[in-house]
């Protein structure tokens, strides 16, 4: 074996070893301890209980309904986003991703303010009907859960599908038109087959996210409707490690089969349509009247569903519902230093999030290379590793990191490195995937030229590959950062109060009914995400959608 090949293997295997230590080992240890130590319910007791079966069924059903709704709402948006030419398109595109990167706890706040009893819609209805009691509460129960999931994931569908649609070769459509195909059959025969892979990919991802949903179901499920994740949380709190492990095992089996089908789907779609072709675009003026009406109606509904909760967050940052006044208290909280202030959580969020982003890039690059490697088994291994963090409950990861890493090393007295590790794991799927897509689009001829001009492996990497990868690294970095600063459940489990982040501070403030403080923190998170995505859109010129 040649020496540099040997090094290549070490570099490629390095992230896989890290993930084995910080993800697979802790989670495996928790599962094995729970199943075999005999504390709490056994596996059979757990799965034969009626409520466990109901939880599994409910988790699957709500995820299916949410996925269908997200596709129904997201698909027209994706078509419009790809097809329409209008001013401020890149701004809209950056804003669309905002819901997806919002911390779930912020979404809960926005949803209650918009759709809940005495929320904005309810207040309008009450005003119209002159009623003094609440008429409509959509932020509760199954309806609330499904709506919130739709809000979360419809943007994902829009981005993924529109990105794939933009690469539709206009010549095919023109030929079809010349051959006399009407718009319906053009959609059915050309557009649909072209976007089908991205449509199914976004469907699987949406299903996965809804399947793993935690704070939303906790808040709207009234203790009756639970996802597996919520029941795992319950089991951990009651120190029923047997039940927790059994449920984690079931959860992992389901998510891994989803991940495998996602990877299979990715294989099929590779090397389709050159990234150079761009779809024929048009302006709103070119549409027929009924089409204009339909488009306008759709935009209004989408604005209500997706824009509404975000607008409510802005209001929540200034409006104190208890005193019924507008105030800047929330922002003075954010700059207050000390144990009761929001300054430390803000700094913690930026520090942990920043560090986790850098780490997830450093680990993500070799992971992406491993995915492109020709060594047998390595690509599938790295794909699984990339998707694994999306499919394992973050509470289990946190509990595992705590028991097998933090406590034996004594890091639990100052656990910030553990938080950074947990957040890195959560961001990794996004950086690795984005960099992998970037790698795919590098022209192999350029690399051959570098080789033939005598560049060493390091030179080729630093001067040719990395500069070409910069846009995709940035895209992945922004996603990873957004995931890291929005992460709440793992951080909450690991952190001591001096380690609390903004997401935890929101939860904290909501608990003691400090609504403006929670609102202000939420607004800061939203602002950070928007700024990061706008910057990224500028640099990467709109290739966001390919990341996932």
């Amino acid at each position, binding site marked *: 074996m040649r020496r540099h090949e040997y090094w290549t293997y070490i570099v490629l295997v390095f992230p896989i070893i890290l993930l084995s230590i910080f993800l697979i080992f802790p989670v495996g240890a928790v599962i094995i301890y729970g199943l075999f130590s005999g*504390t709490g*319910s056994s596996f059979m007791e757990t799965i034969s*209980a*009626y*409520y466990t079966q*109901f939880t599994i069924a409910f988790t699957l059903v709500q995820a299916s309904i949410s996925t269908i709704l997200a596709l129904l709402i997201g698909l027209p948006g994706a078509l419009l986003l790809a097809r329409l030419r209008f001013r401020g398109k890149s701004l809209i595109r950056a804003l669309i991703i905002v819901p997806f990167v919002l911390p779930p706890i912020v979404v809960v706040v926005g949803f209650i303010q918009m759709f809940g*009893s*005495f929320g904005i819609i309810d207040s309008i209805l009450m005003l119209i009907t002159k009623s*003094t*009691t*609440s008429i409509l509460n959509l932020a509760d129960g199954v309806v609330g859960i499904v709506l919130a999931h739709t809000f979360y994931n419809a943007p994902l569908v829009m981005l993924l599908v529109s990105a794939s649609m933009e690469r539709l070769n206009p010549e095919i459509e023109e030929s079809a038109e010349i051959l006399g195909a009407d718009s319906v059959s053009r959609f059915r025969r050309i557009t649909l087959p072209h976007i089908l892979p991205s449509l199914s990919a976004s469907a699987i991802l949406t299903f996965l996210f809804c399947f793993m949903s935690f704070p939303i179901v*906790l*808040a709207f499920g*009234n*203790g*009756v*409707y639970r996802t597996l994740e919520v029941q795992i949380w*319950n089991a*951990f*709190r*009651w*120190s*029923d490690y047997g039940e927790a492990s059994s449920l984690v095992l079931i959860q992992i089996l389901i998510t891994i089969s989803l991940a495998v089908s996602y990877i299979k789907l990715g294989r099929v779609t590779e090397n389709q349509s050159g990234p150079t072709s761009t779809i024929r675009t048009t302006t709103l003026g070119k549409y027929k009247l009924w089409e204009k009406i339909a488009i306008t109606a759709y935009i209004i509904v989408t604005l209500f569903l997706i824009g509404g909760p975000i607008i409510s967050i802005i209001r929540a940052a200034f409006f104190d*519902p208890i005193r019924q006044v507008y105030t800047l208290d929330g922002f003075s909280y954010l700059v207050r230093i000390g*144990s*009761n202030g929001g300054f430390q959580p803000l700094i913690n969020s930026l*520090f942990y999030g920043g*560090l986790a982003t*850098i780490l997830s890039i450093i680990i993500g690059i070799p992971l992406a290379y491993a995915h492109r490697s020709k060594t047998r088994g390595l690509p599938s291994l790295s794909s699984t590793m990339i998707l694994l963090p999306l499919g394992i409950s973050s509470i289990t990861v946190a*509990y595992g990191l*705590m*028991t097998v890493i933090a*406590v*034996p090393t*004594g890091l*639990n*007295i*100052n656990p*910030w490195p553990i938080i950074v590790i947990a957040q890195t794991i959560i961001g990794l799927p996004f950086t690795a995937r984005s960099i992998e897509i970037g790698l795919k689009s590098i022209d192999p001829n350029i690399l051959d030229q570098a080789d033939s001009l005598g560049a060493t492996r390091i*030179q080729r990497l*630093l*001067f040719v590959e*990395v*500069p070409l990868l910069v846009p995709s690294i940035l895209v992945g970095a922004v996603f990873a950062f957004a995931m890291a600063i929005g992460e709440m459940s793992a951080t*909450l*489990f690991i952190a*001591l*109060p*001096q380690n*609390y982040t903004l997401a*935890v501070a929101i*939860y*904290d403030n*909501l*608990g*003691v*009914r400090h609504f403006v403080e929670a609102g202000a923190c939420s607004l800061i998170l939203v602002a950070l995400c928007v700024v990061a995505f706008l910057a990224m859109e500028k640099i990467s010129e709109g290739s966001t959608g390919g990341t996932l």
Partner: protein
Amino acid sequence: MLASLKLGVVDMTEYPVRRNPKAIFAVVAIVTILIVASYGIISFWKPRFVVYTYSSFMDWGDEGADVVLERAFAPFEERYGIDIDFVVLESDANFIVSRLNAEAANPIADVVIGIDNILVLQEAARNVLEPYESPNLALINDSFVNSLDAENYLTPFDFGLVTLIYSLNTINTTTHPQLDNLTLADLTTTELASALVTEDPHLSSPGLAFLLSQIAIYEKILGEDWTEWWDAVEGNIDIEEGWNEAWSAWTSDPTKHLLVSYGTDPAYSANYLGSEPDTSIAPFYYQNQHWAWMQVEGVGLVKNGPNPDLGKAFIDYCLNATVQNEIPLNQWMFPVRTDLTLPSVFNYAIHPSEVSILNTLLNSTEISENLQSWLNQFDTVMTPG
């Protein structure tokens, strides 16, 4: 390398400048290392005396927890020359027990405050506690020790009565005469069931206390199957995540009249309004007497904690008047030192002498043996379908 850089500069008119990424990497690396190092140094752990407690501990007064805890514990800190680090974990006592279990091999906390008389019956809680019999137990009534934990895993700190409360702004004994002598059967009507807010017994201690109250009444007083009541109210009753959420739902929605809460709430309301309270209590009425559940919260020594002697001294100190006198107006519970004078607003609270205690109907062995299966049965009944 240098040559290629020079080349880049010379041929700038034709080719874009090729910056050396190594320099950028070096700068990023140095900046990162500096930031990480300084954060690490600033946040470096200094040995302290650590007390784990839940959010909102002593935080319901006008001054806030920081001021109150400083005032109550400064003499202790001075005497032993230490700083007490109150680690307020953003959750409830269940979560703290779960965390103590995770840390059992290498605990950082010395003392934990807030585990109550139901939770302490769990093996998970006893596993992380070290029994300690404080000499200051002589200062309090034996009944508290017995109702909390006769084996001294915990030392009583405060107590309260869990009962139903209602808002006088929306409902009163004229509109609903049954509130005077309320039974669980009264609550099964659609009107009252949908007006009742409680907490998830998995996630909230008053919620669990309410579940046990209901079980005690059905199984011990009425001799009926307790799950039937939940069957009757299922779909109407509002079960919130925790007490804060439940309080929120109860105050913001005028159709929610009743809340599972504490018997001191009218005192809190009177103190807040500076007048007559707008909150009243509706304890359950059976066998010609009123009933309520008594929740006793304790302070316990963490097993294998770093400073066991200081921990014991701290537990003794918690029963001093300096600490106990802060409980009524900041924690809105009763101090276990019944010899202390309560603030006058506590006249509006319901006192343990005025009700029969439901806990006496369920002994601790019964609770510890059945708690998991009760919770599982509760889940099964409340699961739709």
